[in-house]
């Protein structure tokens, strides 16, 4: 027997320890950045005048850290731990496991550097630029090979329900990431997505919603199906239900994306389809919650003394709440009120802090003592962590729902003369600022609870009894080999994986394929003018600063929006937008028809100090735009890439892009000079930004 053979008789616990520890590190970062972002909304000067930590750049850092760093590492650790035990074999390759680990940390590091610097594709949860996207793809492939390799050499032929969820996760995330991230680079760190306008919106929310589905739900359901029975030492309530749960969930989830685009210029049939499937999704989601919660049946009295059980029950309850609220918000008439408001922010944090966060905490409290061969340092601290966390989430959730509904109703208020009751957007913002403070307090409590956990875990790890070793496997009989009877579907990994992938692809193809020919939906009488070179340059700055995270560019066909912002947005207007910038949240007003509404001077003063125009504004000042020079060096390449993607630029326009842009910049800066701007601003970024803002709503008119 050589060394290698002996090794296969042990589970690889070292890799699980690595993922468990790094999860805590990134959790701290994600929570802290979230708290700062929350405080910035309550008190705008908190960006310290620094462009790198201004809300528009900090928010992607927070979401990426929470989803891909905190939840991501926890998923990998939990999957590697449970998969080995469920399949009774060591992971396929120690080397691949470690490439996976270090590769993923490299991705996170690249994100943590590039996002504050303003490198972004301008698509929510898919902000990372193309070189990092390629790195993610490579690491994911390593992960997939490692997982499916383990599946191939498994000693237990039957795959337990947790494994099904892992399979669906790995395959679907690969499809989502690749399709949504396809982009044509024009420089080392910048690119334009191949999708445009309505099509980009659809692909983005097909991705975005299923990032929630297949990164924050299916892997966690898999972990739930393993860790709830293990922690309770009781079988899952109904294995029968888990079969229905799995197939219904993976089939239905993928269709639900368009509910993020209700009342937009997305074709109506897609909106209806997204809404109907979102409502249907309620059933399988609650199937999973019920299956988890009823596993506690007959053991409820033990919950009193077991903090880890409390975390599990709260996590499942938050999952149930979020998956009830999701379908509710997907109903068009509810979306009319809730969309663009803080209600959505409350909704996602109920899921993220309650379901994902608490599941991870429960898993770590269970795993760390096991992996370090010791006992948890203090149950009491874990108990305190639970209550602090719970109160934190409730404060967060309630304040955000109240803020969202309040502001939504204020936006909609129309008096008997048919006029807006609150025509000034800022009035609706000032009203909810106190709730922003309460939200931040909720987040702070959640973080304090987390700090107790870190202390508890560190103490636990330090109390380890013996040198760390890998767990030895007792039963080494390979049941795949002595297999005489016909196996059921759950014993065939390849067939199962193909079927799961098919279930996911049906909805994908039916929704995305018809919009590939976007011109079917366009009114042929309307010719959309592409942005001028300078406007496009300004648009890239708009994306860089993350303006879309607080300002939408999509007016819905609702009475109050028509009164406040003008005619509803059309497909034609954004048809050449790479990426689309419709946005999903209105911390500030919609900008789709901002162009020509105010003079250039208004924008100049407003960007430098928003409070000079609107004393109560909570928008940070963007004074660096007046200090930095426009980088004309890429502009020809940019227009050329856009031209290749179908934007109707002529060869001349591409050739003369820099000359044209400088000429337009001169006109704008001369105009500002006449109004009394003394500084030399001809080459400054603020000119390009003004050019873009003045072009909003000016293209694609009849």
């Amino acid at each position, binding site marked *: 027997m050589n060394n290698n053979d002996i090794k296969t008789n042990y589970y690889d616990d070292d890799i699980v320890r690595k993922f468990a520890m790094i999860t805590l590190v990134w959790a701290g970062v994600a929570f802290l950045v979230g708290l700062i972002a929350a405080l910035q909304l309550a008190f705008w000067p908190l960006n310290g005048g620094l462009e790198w930590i201004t809300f528009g750049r900090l928010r992607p850092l927070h979401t990426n850290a929470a989803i891909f760093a905190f939840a991501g590492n926890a998923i990998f650790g939990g999957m590697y731990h449970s998969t080995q035990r469920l399949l009774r074999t060591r992971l396929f390759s120690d080397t691949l496991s470690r490439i996976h680990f270090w590769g993923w940390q490299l991705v996170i590091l690249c994100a943590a550097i590039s996002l504050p610097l303003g490198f972004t594709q301008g698509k929510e949860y898919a902000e990372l630029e193309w070189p990092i996207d390629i790195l993610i793809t490579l690491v994911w492939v390593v992960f997939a090979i490692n997982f499916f390799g383990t599946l191939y050499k498994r000693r237990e032929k039957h795959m337990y329900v947790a494994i099904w969820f892992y399979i669906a996760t790995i395959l679907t995330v690969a499809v989502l990431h690749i399709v949504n991230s396809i982009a044509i680079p024009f420089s080392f760190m910048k690119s334009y997505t191949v999708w445009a306008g309505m099509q980009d919106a659809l692909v983005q929310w097909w991705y975005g919603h299923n990032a929630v589905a297949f990164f924050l739900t299916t892997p966690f359901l898999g972990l739930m199906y393993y860790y709830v029975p293990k922690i309770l030492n009781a079988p899952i309530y109904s294995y029968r239900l888990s*079969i229905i749960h799995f197939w219904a969930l993976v089939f239905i989830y993928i269709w639900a994306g368009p509910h993020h685009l209700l009342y937009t210029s997305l074709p109506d049939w897609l909106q209806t389809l997204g809404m109907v499937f979102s409502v249907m999704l309620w059933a399988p989601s609650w199937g999973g919650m019920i299956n988890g919660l009823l596993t506690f049946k007959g053991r409820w009295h033990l919950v009193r003394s077991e903090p880890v059980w409390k975390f599990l029950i709260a996590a499942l309850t938050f999952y149930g709440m979020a998956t009830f609220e999701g379908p509710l918000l997907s109903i068009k008439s509810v979306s009319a009120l809730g969309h663009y408001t803080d209600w959505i922010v409350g909704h996602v944090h109920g899921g993220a802090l309650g379901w994902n966060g608490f599941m991870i905490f429960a898993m770590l409290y269970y795993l760390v003592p096991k992996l370090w061969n010791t006992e948890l340092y203090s149950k009491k601290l874990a108990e305190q962590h639970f209550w602090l966390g719970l109160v934190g989430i409730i404060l967060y959730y309630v304040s955000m729902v109240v803020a969202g509904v309040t502001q939504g109703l204020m936006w909609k208020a129309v008096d008997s003369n048919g006029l807006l009751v609150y025509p000034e957007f800022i009035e609706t913002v000032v009203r909810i600022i106190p709730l922003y403070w309460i939200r931040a307090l909720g987040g702070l409590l959640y973080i304090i609870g987390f700090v107790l956990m870190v202390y508890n875990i560190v103490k636990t790890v330090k109390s380890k009894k013996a040198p760390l070793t890998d767990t*030895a496997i*007792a039963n080494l009989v390979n049941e795949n080999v002595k297999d005489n009877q016909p196996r*059921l579907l*759950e014993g065939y990994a390849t067939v199962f994986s193909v079927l799961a992938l098919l279930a996911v692809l049906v909805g994908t193809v039916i929704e995305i394929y018809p919009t590939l020919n976007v011109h079917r939906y366009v009114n042929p009488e309307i010719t959309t003018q592409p942005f001028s070179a300078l406007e496009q340059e300004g648009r890239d700055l708009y994306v860089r600063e993350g303006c879309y995270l607080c300002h939408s560019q999509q007016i819905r066909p609702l009475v109050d929006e028509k009164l406040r912002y003008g005619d509803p947005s059309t497909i034609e207007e954004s048809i050449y937008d790479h990426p689309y910038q419709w946005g999903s949240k209105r911390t500030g007003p919609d900008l789709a028809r901002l162009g020509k509404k105010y003079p250039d001077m208004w924008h100049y003063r407003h960007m430098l100090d928003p409070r000079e125009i609107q004393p109560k504004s909570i928008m940070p000042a963007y004074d660096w735009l007046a200090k930095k020079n426009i980088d004309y060096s890429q502009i020809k390449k940019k227009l050329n890439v856009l031209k290749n993607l179908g934007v109707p630029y002529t060869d001349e326009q591409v050739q003369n892009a820099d000359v044209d842009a400088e000429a337009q910049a001169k006109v704008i800066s001369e105009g500002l000079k006449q109004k009394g701007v003394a500084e030399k601003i001809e080459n400054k970024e603020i000119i390009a930004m003004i050019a873009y803002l003045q072009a909003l709503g000016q293209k694609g008119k009849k």
Partner: protein
Amino acid sequence: MSTILFMVAVALILSITFVVSYLWALSSGQFNDLDTPALRILKDDILKGTERKNHEQQ
């Protein structure tokens, strides 16, 4: 209108596929044992303490 027709066709094909695959699953015995898989995972199948030492000395 063409979208509705397309969706009706898709709905019909999908629902027939689901019924057929359910009947196949039922008749091929996929649901014969819905208890042991849930119980099996509770068993750890690992070696600990002296058991492990003895095993490694062999």
